[in-house]
């Protein structure tokens, strides 16, 4: 629309427009210009601000104190002395942590789990008694473990028991054995125990690896094993005995996977670290190994205690499997029905 500058209405409109835009410009300027200070600080002082800040930080902490703080936290130096146990560190912190964990949770708390297992098994035996055969044995038997498998089992089992007794003596002897044996008798025994433990350990690893290799094919978890766990293995309440293969779910998960594979390999690797200090492992590696070895060993022993109970007095007829290698047909049908069917088909 063409406007006539002489038109008074148009002039009035123009004045109003100018007044409005001026107000907007003043408001925007009033709001934005004060923020320009930040722009200035950021663009001009950004680069030199950094060293000044660092200098201020340095002034706030004492350089001499920082020096000794670093030493306190394991700062390495140089030493002319040489030897397998000579370190160039003035203060190694890990030892105190190791001491707290080893003397606290590992040696003073965790063994109670083992004690609880013994107590629990004892109470189960007293209250429930052994699991009996539901039908009398007819005299027919099936082969459960071959001669070679039994030799392997007992080789590993005997070594396990020796290692467990000697190892637990070293961990708990100071608290449980010195009070009645005295320092000298226990010292003499501990010297023999550590020698047995150190020399038999590597032999045990051989048995462990062979066991895993031979028996992993029986220990693959299947759907039926989940059902077994849901029925509590038939040990509690009036549950009927759940179906099981050659190894039931408890044997698969607890004895094979958790104990033999996980804990067994854990104690083996850490055991080698502790057994051969001449291989040059760092002190931190040895500290961690010692903790892992103790924790894994206690869990291992706890599970094997259950395995020993169920394999001997806990289940009538179970021990035959590892002594003669044959079990009665009725035992097989009751405890490992799927395996019994499989054997029957062959």
């Amino acid at each position, binding site marked *: 629309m063409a406007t006539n500058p002489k038109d008074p209405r148009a002039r009035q409109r123009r004045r109003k427009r100018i007044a409005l835009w001026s107000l907007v410009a003043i408001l925007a300027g009033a709001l934005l210009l004060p923020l320009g200070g930040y722009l200035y600080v950021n663009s001009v002082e950004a680069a030199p601000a950094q060293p000044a800040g660092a200098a201020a930080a340095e*002034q706030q902490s*004492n*350089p*001499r*104190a920082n*020096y000794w703080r670093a*030493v306190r936290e394991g*700062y390495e*130096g*140089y*030493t*002319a*002395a*040489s*030897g*397998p*146990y*000579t*370190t*160039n*560190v*003035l*203060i*190694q*912190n*890990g*030892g*105190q942590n*190791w*001491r707290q964990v*080893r*003397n606290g949770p590992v040696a003073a708390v965790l063994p109670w789990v083992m004690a609880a297992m013994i107590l629990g098994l004892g109470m189960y035996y007293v209250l429930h008694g052994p699991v009996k055969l539901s039908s009398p044995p007819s005299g027919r038997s099936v082969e459960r473990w071959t001669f070679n498998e039994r030799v392997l089992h007992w080789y590993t089992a005997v070594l396990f028991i020796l290692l467990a007794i000697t190892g637990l003596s*070293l*961990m708990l*002897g*100071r608290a449980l054995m*010195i009070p009645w044996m005295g*320092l*000298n008798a*226990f*010292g003499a025994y*501990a*010297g023999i125990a*550590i020698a047995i433990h*150190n*020399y038999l350990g590597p032999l045990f690893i051989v048995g462990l690896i062979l066991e895993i290799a031979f028996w992993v094919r029986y220990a693959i978890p299947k759907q039926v094993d989940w059902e077994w766990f849901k029925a509590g293995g038939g040990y509690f309440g009036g549950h009927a005995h759940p179906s099981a293969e050659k190894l039931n779910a408890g044997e698969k998960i607890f004895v094979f996977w958790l104990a033999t594979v996980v804990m067994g390999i854990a104690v083996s690797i850490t055991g080698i670290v*502790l*057994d*051969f*200090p*001449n*291989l040059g492992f760092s*002190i931190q590696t*040895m*500290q961690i190994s*010692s903790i892992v070895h103790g924790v894994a060993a206690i869990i291992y022993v706890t599970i094997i205690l259950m395995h020993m109970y169920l394999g001997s007095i806990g289940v009538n007829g179970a021990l035959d499997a590892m002594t003669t290698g044959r079990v009665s047909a009725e035992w097989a049908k009751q405890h490992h029905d799927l395996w019994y069917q499989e054997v029957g088909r062959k």
Partner: protein
Amino acid sequence: MARMKFLCDAERCIECNGCVTACKNEHEVPWGVNRRRVVTLDDGVPGEKSISVACMHCTDAPCAAVCPVDCFYTTPDGIVLHNKDLCIGCGYCFYACPFGAPQYPQQSAFGVRGKMDKCTFCAGGPDADGSAEEIKKYGRNRIAEGKLPLCAEMCATKALIAGDGDVVADIYRKRVLKRGGRPQTWGWETAYKG
């Protein structure tokens, strides 16, 4: 009773290793075993510091706390000693010690540790003072003879001092007060602009 202490003055130690040599010679320490060592921090860099370190004879000694055969004991002088007849060479004291004091003679091809050996503050062990047995296992017993540890006695710059903790602390405090040169108080430069 005195509370025995070592103190190494980092401003004085010149890393001559005289303390190490004195200790090895006095106690016939086996090869590869260092009851005492000198650690140099920032070696070759301005501000390097050397410190001679051995067993610090802790009041709450970690070695004693973790020993499975309980072979450590503290003398009335506050010296931490151990009984080599009980020691089984398990290495736990070496894991626990902050100062790397426990040492082991290598015994066999399997890397089995021998019985632990460490600084005795020249106070021997549980065997009869000065007996052939004690000298063989733990070295000389200078404390029983009324003498102080040889490492400190031998120190050329008197950086390493050993003895009653009160006396040792007194000596060090006097040194700090008398030391000349630039003030060592942190913040001095800031306060007085150099």
